[in-house]
């Protein structure tokens, strides 16, 4: 999300990483990448690539370190993903395409995955890349330190075998469908074993001077200022990358980033603030790139949660009344400045095969909201605010007053909702909390009535949707089931979907899940947020996600 306050901006990377499923520039994309695929670059170009000049990228937060395997922090992933690769990449439809793995087969109904690794890949220091690097990275780093991969893949993984230097086998205890979408550079960047072996990966000096296989190699890092990357001359993709150098420049404030772009100080910014979009669109020097993948994660839905522990919120009519009282189009217009759309189902429309298109979420209708509150026993008092009169579990005379917890960056949501809920007689008190406090208050102490979270669905519902509804994920883990929603039928459906192979079959199961949870309304799915990247000519050839600059060039 773009931010309004400098302080908030500084942390935007962390915030986004904290609530997002896929951290940072988001899943690797591979359209236009010649990874043995049809879309090779034009033959007229030098087969060795290069000559593309220097690209200057604005990033909003200092990464602190450059090891994307030990953290899900958006700041680190944004700055470091160009240096690394995953086994697979994800194309614009979030479908897996070859990256470090050239091909793969799935056996045992989805309980065993065998990857054939690409030949001739070397680390930036010249050491050959082998299956031992993959096994080491998973066993010693990702499954211990990468929060998401550890908690999703870890419990179901039986073991990793390396029958030879070019083959890796993942064995699971049961069929596991989502794996291929969890192997990109965001979820599972591969580290060099020869550098990390025998050390504490969290404290290895290479975290500040990383060695990867990616299109760009590390050159220098000046904390809170800039990161310089140079072209990897021996990159495995032929004729790539074209750029000679990439400079990541820390500019914390989104408004300042836009100004730097206009002034020609930088060539690429990850997010264009809504108010500036029209002006940049009209600028002949600047091109915009619209995408659903934000630097903080992909397919994010801004979601209001209801705490099921609170008696007031246990009545579905109250939850639905609140949903009816919210004008979600206003959020798109006034907060997102058009950079997003009203959510239409619990799963993002960005995951087309899982997104349900036959669901009707409560529309903006204050009259209906007030009628439902009346029915539920919340009568309007003299000042229009509602007071309990015969509500189960609530003493008569209790005012309908709720707190609303949010990151400081999301203050606008609170301000708009407070005034819209106020119009139907519900008093909302805003409590802005920094991410660490928010996580503790909401997920550990469960001390809240309502809140807003950017739940990023990621490339697969198993990654970012299940955690919101799974009754096993209520409790101390941050950004899990905030509502405290429990439905054993829903739990069982999620497990079934996890073990079913094939998008169509899985999509049907997710459709049933969405029908159930939409009716129960543990959340109000507000808006799907999208991002607008901007870049300066003559730079071109970008993709909106992870290896965004792999095929780019700044040569005129």
């Amino acid at each position, binding site marked *: 999300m*773009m*931010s*309004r*306050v*400098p*302080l*908030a901006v500084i942390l935007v990377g962390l915030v986004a990483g904290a609530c997002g499923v896929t951290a940072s520039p988001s899943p690797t994309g591979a359209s236009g990448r010649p990874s043995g695929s049809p879309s090779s670059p034009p033959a007229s170009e030098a087969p060795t690539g290069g000559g593309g000049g220097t690209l200057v990228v604005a990033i909003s937060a200092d990464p602190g370190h450059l090891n994307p395997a030990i953290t899900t922090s958006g700041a680190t992933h944004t700055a470091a993903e160009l240096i690394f690769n995953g086994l697979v990449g994800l194309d614009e439809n979030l479908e897996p395409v070859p990256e470090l793995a050239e091909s793969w087969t799935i056996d045992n109904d989805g309980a065993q995955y065998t990857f054939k690794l690409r030949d001739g890949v070397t680390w930036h220091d010249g050491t050959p890349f082998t299956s031992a690097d993959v096994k080491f990275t998973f066993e010693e780093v990702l499954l211990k330190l990468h929060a998401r991969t550890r908690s999703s893949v870890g419990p179901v993984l039986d073991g990793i075998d390396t029958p030879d230097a070019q083959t890796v086998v993942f064995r699971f205890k049961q069929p596991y469908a989502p794996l291929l979408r969890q192997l990109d550079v965001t979820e599972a960047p591969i580290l060099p074993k020869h550098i990390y072996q025998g050390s504490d990966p969290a404290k290895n000096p290479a975290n500040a001077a990383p060695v990867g296989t990616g299109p760009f190699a590390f050159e220098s890092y000046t904390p809170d200022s800039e990161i310089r990357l140079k072209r990897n001359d021996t990159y495995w993709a032929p004729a790539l990358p074209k750029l000679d150098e990439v400079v990541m420049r820390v500019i914390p*404030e*989104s*408004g300042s980033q*836009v*100004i730097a772009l206009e002034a020609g100080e930088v060539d690429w910014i990850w997010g264009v*603030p809504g*108010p*500036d979009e029209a*002006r940049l669109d009209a600028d002949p020097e600047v091109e915009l790139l619209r995408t659903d993948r934000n630097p903080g994660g992909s397919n994010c839905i801004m979601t209001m949660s209801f705490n099921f522990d609170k008696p007031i919120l246990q009545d579905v009519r109250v939850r639905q009344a609140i949903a009816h009282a919210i004008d979600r189009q206003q959020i798109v*217009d*006034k*907060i997102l400045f058009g950079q997003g759309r009203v959510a239409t189902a619990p799963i993002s429309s960005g995951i087309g095969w899982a997104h349900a298109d036959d669901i009707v979420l409560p529309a903006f209708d204050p009259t209906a909201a007030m009628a439902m509150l009346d029915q539920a026993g919340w009568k309007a008092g003299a000042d229009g605010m509602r007071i309990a009169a015969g509500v189960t579990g609530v003493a008569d005379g209790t005012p309908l007053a709720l707190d609303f917890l949010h990151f*400081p960056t999301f*203050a*606008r949501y*609170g*301000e*708009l909702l*407070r*005034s819209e809920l*106020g119009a139907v007689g519900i008093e909302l*008190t*805003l*409590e*802005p*909390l*920094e991410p660490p*406090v928010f996580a503790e208050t909401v997920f550990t102490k469960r001390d809240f009535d309502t809140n807003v979270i950017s739940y990023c669905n990621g490339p697969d519902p198993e990654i970012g949707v299940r955690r919101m509804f799974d009754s096993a994920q209520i409790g101390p883990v941050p950004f899990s089931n905030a509502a405290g929603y429990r439905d054993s039928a829903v739990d069982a459906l999620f497990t079934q979907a996890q073990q079913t192979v094939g998008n169509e079959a899985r999509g049907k199961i997710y459709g049933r899940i969405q029908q159930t949870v939409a009716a129960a309304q543990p959340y109000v799915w507000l808006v799907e947020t999208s991002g607008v990247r901007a870049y300066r000519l003559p730079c071109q050839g970008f993709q909106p996600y992870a290896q965004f600059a792999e095929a780019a060039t700044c040569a005129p």
Partner: protein
Amino acid sequence: MYDSTPAFALAERVGPLPRATPVASGDLGVRRRRSWAWARTPSAVVGIALTAVVLALAALADVLAPGDPFAPVGPALSAPSSVHLIGTDDLGRDLLSGVIHGIRTSVFVALGVGLIAFPLGVVVGAVAGARGGVVDDVLMRLSEVWQVLPRFFLALMVVALFGPGLDRIVLVLGLTSWALLARIMRAEILSIREREFVDAARALGMSEARILRRHMLPHVMPAAIVFVALLLAQVCLVESSLGFLGLSDPNAISLGYLAAQAQRFLRVAWWMWFFPGVALITIVIGFNLVGDAINDRMRGRL
């Protein structure tokens, strides 16, 4: 920046070294701003007028700008017009209403801080000055600790760690503002402790406590009042700086919050930046000039 040395006027008046007691400082307490005599009346008038306007706006906020200042009432980002005199923000909220309620928040915080710091500083300073000895030593060491960490940092830490809220802003600023006042009070008490009228009271057999209350405090009160007036100005600046960093109470609109909102719209809505700042500068200048004026008058009378 906005902390322990309250303002230039104070620095001019109490001298530069509140930490040490200069031996040759006989003239320190009675500095008069002679050269400003010509400007005394006009600047005092301006200061009192500004402060009066500010206080009136704060008191009448609900009458002048009824309704919730957070409520969207018009089109988003519209420039100053006859409907919205100083424009609207990105949610379509009337900026004038926001500024008026923001002034009220500033005044509320300033007065709250004054109510905490004034009695605390006067009592600690007077006791330290009058009793001397170990009590003096302990109290002054204590006030030193409070002064070493600039007020802004403590306020920032507390508010950032414990979450924003008017109550804790007032509390932390109040508790960090008394130390310098205590030192000024102590110095003033010391400077009159051996004066004839005090000696005379002692000769009459009055108790030290009574002498302190009846004879010494009235003499040092002007300095305390001046300090507090200047303190209020500084408190408004600190409070708005916290708001600018996103640490204002989300349920009470403040000028710093409005300035922070403006940051994102600097290029498209200059009014969002301009007017909250002007309001703040008005408040601060008003308090400063009033402080100076009181200083001049009371010093003149002494």
